[in-house]
Structures are given as structure tokens and as C-alpha cells.
């Protein structure tokens, strides 16, 4: 009798503990993989971003046959690379996609994997609105605050220049 | 306020709102700010419907081979960060006013519409479309498309 009386209490306490433990486990051992469905460690904005960041991205040099005075960085290329007419929501998807592709493309350029480069370039250039686009894959180093305030980068390291084509 | 007064107040408010609603529904716009007769879908639409729309004849200085109507032009030529219903109500107002011969009141609506073109100059018509509701739903065919006014963004006002 006394057991069933306190059973719900124990179950609830156990549930809370279980959720916590799995969350912690997921945090440490399931990195970069599929997250555990329905369970989450809630590590949101945990780390303060470093003052010096490096990132792979692309710079647009030529677009619709026009040479751009100052090459535009991909994040600011709304309306050039992806349509300014599509909703924001949609463009974020495109953007994440493009970002992921660039993240894979840059190392394969560095390691000279020709086949891989070919495949990723096709993926990337499919998303462009028009062709040809002359773009440069770069590694940028920057302070996030400086970059936001006046678009300044500490260093831009070119990895390769490409001209897009319709595949 | 004592209980009885409160009760009378509430009931008289209801009565006032009720009649105000019906009164307002008889005015041209069919409503007034803050008072709404809630007349939604009260009239069964007639089988032969009329609508107003915009037909683009020239865009960005180029004459179009096939003039296109607003629903198709919306995504191409208009600032579509503004929602469709906004356009519909503006176009309807322009159309109805022209049809009823009250062109004096459409200035700001025309201006708003022209501001939303992505590129100029544009030559466009306001078209009164007559259609059989059922037929239009099934096939998209209209009975009559009648241009009631033509505008050019380059013309200075009305």
C-alpha cells in the first residue's frame, strides 16, 4: 500500500533524472551526429563565440557578366545568388545548404580531391539564379564585432576561383 | 456601479452595438472602424461575378507580347513582400471607384500601386472582369474582360 502511494513520486523523480542524464550523455557522446529524437541537452548558445573566428565562404566577383567593384561575400548576396523575391524562410534553407556545401568544398580544394570538387561545385552552382557567376572560395579570419560593424576582415585566404556553368 | 445599473448598461451597449452594426452595414464601405456588423458571407454571390484586376501592357519600357493579368504578374513585377490581400483590396477599390465615376478618390491608391512596381515605367490597365463563377473555377474562362482605364506611371498624376 505504501509502495503504490509513493510510486508516482518515484516515477516522476526518475523521469526527471533520466531526462537529465540522457541529455548530458547526448551532449558529450553524440556530437555531429543525429540527435536523440525527443531528448535534448538544451545546450543553446552555450559557448561564447571566440573573438577571432575563421570560416569558409565564397566571394562573388562577377555576376550576369558584370564585374563587381567590391566582391560581395555570400551572406550579403541576397538577390544575386539567391532570389530576393523568395521568402526569407526559404532563403535561409538555401543558405544553410550553400554554407554546408562550402564547408565541404573548401577542404577538398585544399586536399586537391578533383572528383569531390567537381561534385560539390555542381551542387553549389545549381543553387545560383543565373550563370555565369565568377566566385572565389576563401577562408576568412575576422573579429565578429568588427565584421558586423564595418565589414572588415583580418585576413582573406583565397583557395580557388571558379566560373559557374549550367550542368 | 450597482448591479442593476451594470446590467442595464451592458444590455443597452449590446442594443447600441447591434443597431450601429446594422446601420454601418448600409453605408458604402459596409463598416466603420471599431464597429463591425460581422456580415461575413451574408450575400450569396451571384452566378455572374465581377472583379477588378490590373493588366500589364508595358513593363520596364518594353511592350509585352502577351499582356498579363495581376495574379500572374504578382510574383514577377510587384513587390511581393506585401501580401496579396493588400493588393486585392487596393485594386478592387480603384476599380469600383472608376466604375462608379468617382475617379477623384483613387489618387492615393494608384500611387500606392505604382510605388510597388519593381521597375518602371509601366503601362497598365484596370480591367473589369465578368465571369461565370462555376465556369471560372473549372476552366478559368471569363465572359468579358473590359478595360475601364489605362495608366502610365510616367504620367504625372491624374
Amino acid at each position: 500500500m505504501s509502495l503504490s502511494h509513493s510510486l508516482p513520486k518515484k516515477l516522476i523523480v526518475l523521469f526527471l533524472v533520466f531526462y537529465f542524464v540522457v541529455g548530458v550523455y547526448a551532449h558529450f557522446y553524440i556530437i555531429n551526429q543525429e540527435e536523440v529524437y525527443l531528448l535534448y541537452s538544451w545546450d543553446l548558445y552555450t559557448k561564447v563565440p571566440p573573438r577571432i573566428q575563421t570560416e569558409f565562404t565564397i566571394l562573388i566577383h562577377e555576376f550576369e557578366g558584370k564585374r563587381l567593384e567590391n566582391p560581395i561575400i555570400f551572406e550579403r548576396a541576397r538577390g544575386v545568388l539567391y532570389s530576393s523575391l523568395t521568402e526569407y524562410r526559404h532563403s535561409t534553407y538555401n543558405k544553410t545548404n550553400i554554407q554546408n556545401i562550402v564547408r565541404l568544398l573548401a577542404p577538398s580544394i585544399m586536399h586537391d580531391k578533383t572528383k569531390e570538387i567537381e561534385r560539390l561545385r555542381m551542387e553549389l552552382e545549381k543553387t545560383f539564379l543565373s550563370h555565369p557567376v565568377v566566385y572565389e572560395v576563401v577562408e576568412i579570419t575576422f573579429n565578429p564585432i568588427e565584421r558586423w560593424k564595418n565589414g572588415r576582415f583580418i585576413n582573406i585566404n583565397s583557395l580557388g576561383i571558379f566560373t559557374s556553368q549550367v550542368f | 456601479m450597482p448591479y442593476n445599473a451594470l446590467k442595464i448598461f451592458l444590455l443597452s451597449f449590446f442594443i447600441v452595438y447591434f443597431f450601429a452594426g446594422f446601420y454601418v452595414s448600409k453605408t458604402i464601405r459596409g463598416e466603420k472602424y471599431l464597429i463591425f456588423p460581422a456580415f461575413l458571407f451574408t450575400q450569396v454571390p451571384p452566378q455572374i461575378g465581377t472583379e477588378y484586376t490590373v493588366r500589364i501592357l508595358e513593363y520596364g519600357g518594353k511592350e509585352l507580347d502577351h499582356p498579363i493579368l495581376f495574379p500572374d504578374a504578382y510574383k514577377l513585377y510587384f513587390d511581393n513582400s506585401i501580401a496579396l490581400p493588400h493588393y486585392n483590396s487596393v485594386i478592387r477599390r480603384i476599380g469600383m471607384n472608376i466604375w462608379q465615376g468617382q475617379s477623384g478618390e483613387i489618387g492615393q491608391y494608384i500611387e500606392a500601386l505604382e510605388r510597388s512596381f519593381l521597375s518602371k515605367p509601366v503601362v497598365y490597365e484596370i480591367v473589369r472582369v465578368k465571369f461565370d463563377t462555376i465556369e471560372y473555377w473549372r476552366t478559368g474562362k471569363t465572359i468579358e474582360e473590359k478595360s475601364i482605364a489605362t495608366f502610365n506611371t510616367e504620367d504625372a498624376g491624374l
Partner: protein
Amino acid sequence: MNRIRAVSKLINGRLGLGDIDRFVQKDKAYERAKSIVPFFYYFILFVALLQLLQLRHLSEPLIFAPRWPIFWADYVSFQSAGTIILVFFSFATLAGAYFYRNHFGRFVAFLGLLQFHAFQGSFGGPNHQWDLWLWVALILIFLPDIWGKTKQSSREGKKFLIVFWGAQAFLLLTYSMSGIGKLLHAALQYFQGEAHLFMFNSAAFHVYSWLNAMQATSLLGQLIIEHPLLGWFPFMFILYVQVFAFLVAFRPSLHRVWALALVLFHMGTYFGMNAEFFYQVPLLFIFLFASPFHEPGTSWRKMISDLPLVSCLLRRLHSKHVTVT
């Protein structure tokens, strides 16, 4: 004072509104109403926070013609007017959610809603989405501040409940107006020889022309267009529910049923013709579905005998029966 009493006597006697006095007296109803009110304020706070997301894409609309409650918007840019209104709306409703026990808190929440409402209605066209919320917020300001006391005088409790009832009745009134409008126009259209409400394909006609105008499709639209009767019967049912909605304010046994019927009606218009009025649904739940006047154990028999028209019929039958015997 005497005059007030006389008027209220007249109302009670002649108009048969004496019923209200009966059901606003229950202690239990008072306790329940008191626990329902905060949820109205929680809901507007949530609405306000969701509206705050508009800040992201606050772009100049085609037309911006400020309504009188936001007269001050003429003196600032559209961007800052929008930002001020949306942020104020959030904080005013947050104050409402926290201090709903206080006249002042409820007034601030109303003010926030008024600003937001005026903003929504300032884009050239009318916008009645939040009309009901606004009026209900206004009515609730009049609630007497008697929250802290667990046992209050029955007079105060009665006042509390009549204001709460006022919000319910107003909600139902607007549905009645919509229903009566439909009937009036049906008569007009009938005499003018036009298509009218009682034609079997009237619902289908509504669906056709609305979907045409909105360039939209709907889940059941095609079905209704092919079988107009499938649309007509629900349409007649809606007409009944709408027309008699206000009467239901005086029949607590039907509050829950009517709430459900109206929620289903809103779902029906969405699935049938893509016309969405979901912002009404929270009000229906808070004020009618959770109605404090509803007795938990009401029998089906009682509900059916309370139905408008049915009750009238029953009374007539009953009185005949009496005279016969």
C-alpha cells in the same frame, strides 16, 4: 436609483432576461469565473509575443493611414511606429497577465490591444481580426476588484459575474448579428430574384467565388462544388447556430454545446473555403467552453429541451396539453 430599479424590472419581466439574475448568484460560478479570467490575459500576452515576431519584417505597407488611437504615428517613421506599438503591446499585456486582478492592469492591457488593433487597421483596408478581443478586454475592465477575498458578499460576486456574462453575451451577439444579416439578405435576394441562401447550391456558390477571389484551394472545396448538398446542410446548421447564438447567453446549459458548434463552424469554413477565423477560437474556449455557468452534470434531455425553437415548440405543446386536460 429607483428609476434604475424600474428599468431593470421592466427588462427582467418583459424581455425575459430575469434568468441572468438566477445564474449569476451561484458561489461556485463566481469561483470558477475568477479562475478563468487570467487565461484571457495569458492568451493576449501570447498573441502579443507572437506579433512581436513581425519586427523582423516590418516593411512599409502599400498604404499607412493611422487610425485615431495611434494618431501619434503621423509624427514618426513607419518603422519606429510599428516597433513602438508592437513592443508596447507586449509589455502592456505582460502587465495585464501579471496584474489582471487590478483595474489598472486590465486597463493597460486594453490600451496595448487598442494600439495594436489600430495599427492592424491602418493599412488602408479594414481589419476586424482582433475586434472581439478588443471589446472583450474593454468589458473586462469593469470587473470589480474582489480577487483576494475568498468569501465575498454575494452582491459583489453578482457584479463580477454579470460583467463576465457581458463578455460572453457580446461574443455571442456578434455571431447572432452575422446570422441575422444572412437572413435579411436572403429575404432581399429572394425578392429580387437573385441567388439566395435557401437555394441548395448557395454554400457551393460561396465556396466558388471565395476560392476564385483568393486564388486558393481547400481540402473539401472540390467535394462541395461537386455535391452542393454536402455544403448546404452544414450551412443551414450554421445559420441556426449563428442566429440563435445570443439567446444561448441566457441558457447556460447550452454554452458548451454552442462553443463546440462554433469551433466546428470555424473549422468548416477553413476546410471548406479556406476562410480562416481562428483568432475567435480562444475566446470561444475561454468564455463559452469553460463557461462557469454550465452545470457539470447537465443531462442531454435538459440541453435538448433548452434548444432555441425546440424549447418554444415544447412550451407550446405543453401548454396545449395542459388546456386539454
